């Protein structure tokens, strides 16, 4: 598979289809990979593929530094490719501006990442080329997809509150969660705005609560569950639990799962004159 990826990348760079390939390279330690940006065909050997390829490389579509490298080809797993569908729907990218090298995937992380346990996108839903053997994407039942929430949902209201208070207390406001998120693409994040000061910048309980809740809410009905926020959190806040809870509520309310079908209307930003909700009219 690595060879196939390298060959594909080399071909795309050589024939000028793309200027850069966003892929995975060897990391600091064997248990890590890192994003690499291959601009020269002779560098494709820097590309690798293994179970540590956890990153969702679509996040580099929002960064000016990597955008400047020119039209990219992205190596994307099924979960990551869902981001592309959301970004297209939200008009952040044009389809012709990205080339997708989809990879079929049996799961990443060691131990296996939580997101992989109920994966229904082993084969990406959108790609220009597919590397790896095509696999059937079996539907996973609703309950199974949100099994991670079972224990949490059993908690009493006040215990949930206590749980999050304890978790958010740890927050140091490094904003790794939002910076890594491919869907946190606001040019100026709400936390960077101070007129009015919506979110206290301090990492005290009030500031941390408002930040973490606002971040999660902004992803409700948009988050594609790549778990990157949780992976990068230096203080180990289970951010994806929050994302997942909101995803579940969004799915229940709107029967919508982001990043599956390019023809689906967005849950949170679709206007209809005959909307069920009065406040829309």
């Amino acid at each position, binding site marked *: 598979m690595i060879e196939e990826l390298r060959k594909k990348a080399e071909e795309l760079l050589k024939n000028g289809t793309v200027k850069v390939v966003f892929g995975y390279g060897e990391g600091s330690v064997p248990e890590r990979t890192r994003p690499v*940006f291959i601009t020269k065909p002779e560098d494709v050997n820097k590309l690798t593929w293994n179970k540590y390829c956890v*990153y969702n490389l679509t996040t580099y579509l929002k960064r000016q530094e990597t955008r400047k490298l020119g039209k990219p080809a992205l190596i994307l797993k099924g979960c990551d490719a869902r981001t592309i569908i959301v970004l297209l729907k939200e008009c952040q990218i044009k389809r012709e501006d990205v080339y997708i090298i989809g990879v079929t995937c049996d799961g990443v992380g060691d131990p296996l990442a939580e997101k992989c346990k109920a994966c229904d996108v082993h084969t990406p839903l959108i790609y220009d080329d597919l590397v790896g053997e095509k696999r059937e994407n079996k539907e996973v039942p609703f309950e199974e997809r949100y099994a991670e929430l079972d224990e949490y949902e059993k908690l009493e209201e006040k215990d949930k509150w206590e749980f999050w208070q304890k978790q958010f207390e740890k927050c140091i406001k*490094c904003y790794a969660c*939002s910076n890594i998120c491919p869907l946190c693409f606001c040019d100026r994040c709400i936390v960077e705005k101070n007129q009015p000061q919506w979110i206290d910048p301090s990492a005290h309980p009030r*500031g941390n609560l408002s930040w973490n809740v606002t971040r999660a809410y902004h992803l409700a009905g948009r988050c594609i569950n790549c778990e990157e926020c949780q992976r*990068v959190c230096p203080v180990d806040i289970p951010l994806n639990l929050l994302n997942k809870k909101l995803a579940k509520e969004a799915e229940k309310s709107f029967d919508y799962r982001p990043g599956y079908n390019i023809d689906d209307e967005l849950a949170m930003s679709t206007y209809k004159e005959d909307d069920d909700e009065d406040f829309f009219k």
Partner: protein
Amino acid sequence: MEKTLNKNNFDSFITGLKKQGYKTIAPKKDNKLVTLDEIQDANEISLDHVITNNSIKEYFLPKTEKILSYTIEKNKVEMKEPEGFAVKSVIFGSRPCDAFSLPVMDKVFNWDCVDKFWVERREAVTIVTISCDKFDSYCFCTSVGLAPDAKQGSDVLLTKISNDEYLVETVTEKGENLVKELESVFSDPPSGTPDRQVATVEKKFDIGKIKPWLDDNFEHDVWDEFSHKCIGCGACTFVCPTCHCFDIVDECSMTKGDRVKNWDGCQFKMFTMHTSGHNPRNTQGMRWRQRIMHKFKYYVEKFDSTLCVGCGRCSRVCPADMNISEMLEIIETEAGK
């Protein structure tokens, strides 16, 4: 002064500290993390980690702290000084790299004018360090002139000499006083040369080659190339024991408020942005260069210290696996060209 401390006596040591009115902070396991945190009991202490996830910094420069409180009534403002921020404490079981960050940071917080929030805490806190008997591939203390059993910055240094025994060396008068205060928990020093169980951390680069290269290479492709993967968050700077940059903001209601000092970091694009929108460090490459330059050139020129203790935390937490010692190895290679 030299003594020994048996692991079995940790309990009485911690109880003793409590009796003497010290708040005790020690490495504590919390799910996947080991953090320096307040403990009540010796069995909360974790000893089998390489390094704590958080650095010692937050006990001297907290992630957020009040530097002024005030009340506003019509057009009358009354200011109140924050109190009680310097609490008599012992930090037990921090690492030598963390301890060394303190005298390094003393320099900037005492530069010309004294930041009392730092200095008063420094006076109130006693540092009891445990030498490292293990390390991981991110550690590079020896490359920045330190050692896994370095004493600078500690008041007392503990070094493992057998499975359950530590050699206790007092480094400062403050440390000596602490040991005297709790004399009964310590034993006499061993006769002969004890077998100090100290990790051997390999040198990764020659620090002597770094600054001369930085002096000449403010403009260099490596800054952009290396930082393409950087996502522009503050994880590296916030876990760093020597990154001391901060923001000052006001938080208030209609009638009262606080002026607050918060951690801030050079990797954020907003860090240097003028109100006009002009930004002197407009790209991540420039911001990454600032981080390296500040640590290995600017601080050296200003204060004759490297602003890095080789703890490796920034590399461990980096969401994109930016590895600072790797950057320095690249610089070393470039310098040799």
